[in-house]
C-alpha cells in the first residue's frame, strides 16, 4: 500500500500560482525524487501531498482514496523535515513516541516500535538525550526514526541531507537507500541536489516553476532529456549548449552546422527536422575528447581545474562558453588551444522551443563520472 496519484493538482497562495496542473502517479514501494532549482515548487508539492497545504484544484489520491480534504494526521504519511523539526523539549524516546501516543496506541506497543526503530537506526545509546545534545547526523537519524515508528503509507522527505556535511551526506545517502530497500515502502524525496536524485531515485521528477518538466528513471533523464532545462539540470558539470542549424537533411542523416560553420553529420531518426531549422546542440562535458585532427573545433582554454583523476577545462568555442571533463592529468595551461572531438560525443539536439528533437548515440560514449 502506498500509491499516490495526483491529477491536475493546483496550488496557489492568494493570486500567486505555485503549482500548475501536476499529474503524477507514484507506485507502491517506489522511491521518487522531486528535483529542481530552488523556488520550483517541489517542497510545496511535498507539503500538498502531506496535507500541510490545501490543494486548490485537481485531485489527490492515496491508495485510491481521494484525500483532498483529509487532514495531514489522517493521511497516514510521515514526513522528515529539512530542519528535522525534533521537539527540543523532549528526549529522543519521547520524540519517537509522540506520534504513537497521539494515536492512542497501547504503551507496550509504543515501547516495542520505538525500540525496533532505535535498533534499526542505531540510536539506542542516546535515547534519553534531548535533540540539542545530539550531532547533526544523530538528529537526522532520530528524525527518520520518528517517521519509521509510525509505519506510514509513504515517507515524505524534505531535503533531509541538506544540513549534513559532505562526508556524512554520502554515507547517510547510502543508508537511506538501504533503508528504502529494507522497508520497501513508498518514499518521496525532495532535493535540489541532482547527484542525490540520481543515486537514490527509482524515478526522478524534474520540476521548474511549478510544472513537471520530465519524469523518468535517472538514466532516462540523463540519456534522453525531454528538453533543454532537464538536460542542463541533470548531470554535473552541466551540459554544454551550442547554437547551430540544420543545413540539409535526408532520411537517416542531417547535417548540423554550428555557429562557427563546423559541420557534423548526425542521424535524426524519425525526428521532424526541416532544412534551415535553428537548433541547440547539447553535449555533456564528460563526452568531449581531445582530437588530434586540426579540422576539429578549436577551443581556447580559460580556467583549467586539475582535480587529479580528471581535468575540467573551461574554454570558448565559436564565441560560446564550453566545459569539458578530460580524463587524467592533462597539463594544459590557460591560453592553450586544443581541438575537441564533437563527432564522437553523444549529442542532444533541441528545437527552438527547447524541446528535444533527437539524441545521437555517439561513436564512443564514456562512462559518466
Amino acid at each position, binding site marked *: 500500500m502506498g500509491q499516490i496519484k495526483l491529477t491536475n493538482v493546483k496550488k496557489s497562495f492568494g493570486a500567486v500560482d505555485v503549482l500548475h496542473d501536476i499529474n503524477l502517479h507514484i507506485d507502491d514501494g517506489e522511491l521518487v525524487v522531486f528535483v529542481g532549482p530552488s523556488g520550483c515548487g517541489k517542497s510545496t508539492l511535498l507539503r500538498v501531498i502531506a496535507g*500541510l497545504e490545501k490543494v486548490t484544484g485537481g485531485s489527490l489520491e492515496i491508495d485510491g482514496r481521494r484525500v483532498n480534504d483529509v487532514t495531514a*494526521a489522517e493521511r497516514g504519511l510521515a514526513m522528515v523535515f*529539512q530542519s528535522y523539526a525534533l521537539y527540543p523539549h523532549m528526549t529522543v524516546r519521547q520524540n519517537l513516541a509522540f506520534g504513537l501516543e497521539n494515536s492512542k496506541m497501547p504503551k507496550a506497543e509504543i515501547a516495542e516500535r520505538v525500540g525496533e526503530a532505535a535498533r534499526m537506526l542505531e540510536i539506542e545509546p542516546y535515547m534519553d538525550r534531548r535533540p540539542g545534545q545530539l550531532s547533526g547526523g544523530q538528529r537526522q537519524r532520530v528524525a527518520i526514526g520518528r517517521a519509521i515508528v509510525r509505519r506510514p503509507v509513504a515517507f515524505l522527505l524534505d531535503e533531509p541531507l541538506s544540513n549534513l556535511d559532505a562526508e556524512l551526506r554520502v554515507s547517510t545517502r547510502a543508508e537511506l537507500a538501504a533503508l528504502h530497500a529494507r522497508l520497501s515502502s513508498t518514499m518521496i524525496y525532495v532535493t535540489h541536489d541532482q547527484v542525490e536524485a540520481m543515486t537514490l531515485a527509482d524515478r526522478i521528477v524534474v520540476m521548474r516553476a511549478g510544472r513537471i518538466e520530465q519524469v523518468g528513471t535517472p538514466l532516462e533523464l540523463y540519456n534522453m532529456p525531454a528538453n533543454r532545462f532537464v538536460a542542463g539540470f541533470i548531470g554535473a558539470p552541466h551540459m554544454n549548449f551550442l547554437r547551430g542549424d540544420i543545413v540539409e537533411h535526408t532520411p537517416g542523416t542531417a547535417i548540423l552546422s554550428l555557429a562557427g560553420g563546423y559541420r557534423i553529420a548526425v542521424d535524426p531518426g524519425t525526428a521532424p527536422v526541416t532544412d534551415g531549422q535553428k537548433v541547440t546542440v547539447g553535449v555533456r562535458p564528460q563526452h568531449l575528447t581531445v582530437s588530434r585532427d586540426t579540422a576539429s573545433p578549436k577551443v581556447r582554454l580559460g580556467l583549467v581545474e586539475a582535480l587529479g583523476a580528471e581535468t575540467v577545462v573551461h574554454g570558448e568555442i565559436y564565441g560560446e562558453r564550453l566545459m569539458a571533463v578530460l580524463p587524467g592529468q592533462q597539463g594544459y595551461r590557460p591560453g592553450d588551444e586544443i581541438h575537441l572531438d564533437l563527432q564522437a560525443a553523444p549529442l542532444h539536439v533541441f528545437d527552438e522551443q527547447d524541446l528535444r528533437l533527437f539524441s545521437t548515440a555517439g561513436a564512443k560514449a564514456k562512462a559518466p563520472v
Partner: protein
Amino acid sequence: MGAAARFIFRRRGSNGRGKGWHWTDIVTWVWLVCGLLIMFGPAVWLGFSSFKTPAALAEFPPTILPYVTQEVRVEGYDKPLALYEATLEGGGTRVLAEVRRIGIVSQMVDPNAPGEIIKVNIADRAPVRTMSFATENYTQPFVQFDFVQYLWNSVFVTVMATLITLVVNSMAAFALSKYEFRGRSVAMLIILATLMVPLSVIMVPLYSIISTIGLFNNLWGVILPTVATPTGVFILRQYMLTIPDELIDAARMDKASEWQIYWRIVLPLAAPALAVLAIFSVVWRWNDFLWPLIVLSRRELYTLQVGLSIYAGELNVQWHFILAMTVVTMIPVVLVFIFLQRFITTGIAGAGLK
C-alpha cells in the same frame, strides 16, 4: 584581594594603568555611590524603621538604627524607669533612673540606692540608649488584626490571576502567532492599542460590569478583569513567533490535535516567555491597590495592599505597623526578583522588548 573585589575596585587611573585617580574614576564613584544611596537608602530606612517603636519613629533627629532608651526596674517603683547618664553638679557622671520630670528638673534615683532622690537639670542628662528591635511591630498585626487573612487573600488573588493570565494570554498568543487568518494583524493591533487606555478611564464601566455580574465584594472580581493583558499577549506572541513552524507541521503529521500542539509543543517551548509573564503578573497582582480597593469593601476580603491602608486612620497613622507590614508585602516581590531575574533578562531579550 579576591577577584570580585579587584573587579569592583579597579579604576582607570591617572596614567591609564590603574594607578592613581583619573577624573572619570571620581565621577564614576560619586555617581554610583549616589545611585546606591538613592536606590537602597529608602529600602534600608524602611527595613530599620520597621523595627522602631512609635516613640522612636517620632524622634527628632531621626536615626537609621532602631534605638530605645534603656529601662530598669527599681525597687519601690511599679513601672520600669528610663536610664539616663546624668552630669552631676560636683562634676562626674552617673547612670541614674528618672522617676519623674517637673519642669526642667528631673528627679532621679540611683538604681543601686533607690532611697535617695537626686535632682538633675534636664539639660544635664542624656538617655542611655541601646539598640532594640521592636519585633512586636511584626507580631502584633498578625495576632491582633486580620493580617493573615489579608495575606491569604493576596496570595489567592496573585496565584489565581497569574495562572489564568498564563493560560488565557498564551492561547491568544498561540492563535495570533501560529494561525493564518484574516484580520490577524488587525486583532493584534487592537490588543496592543488597549495598552494606551489607563485603568482610571475604564474604572467606572468596569465597576458597573463587575457589580452587575455580582462579583462586587468577591475576590474573583479582583482577579477576572486583570487576567487578559496586552503586554502578556505581546510578550508571548513575539516569543512564539520564534518557534519554527516546522515543529508544528511535524506535530500535525504526528497526529497531534490543535490542543495537543498548544499544550505539548508550544507551551513548553514558550517556557522562558511564560516565566517572564508569570513574574510580571505576580508583581502586578501583588502590588495592585486601586482596583482591589474599589471592588472589595468588606474587611475580610481585603488584600495586603488594601489592608495596609487601614493602618492610616483619620486621626492617627500607625506608622510602625505600616512600615513593618510594607516590609512583609515586599518580601515575595523581592524574592521573585532575586531568584528569577535570569528569566526576566533572557525572556525580555528573547521577546524583543525593551
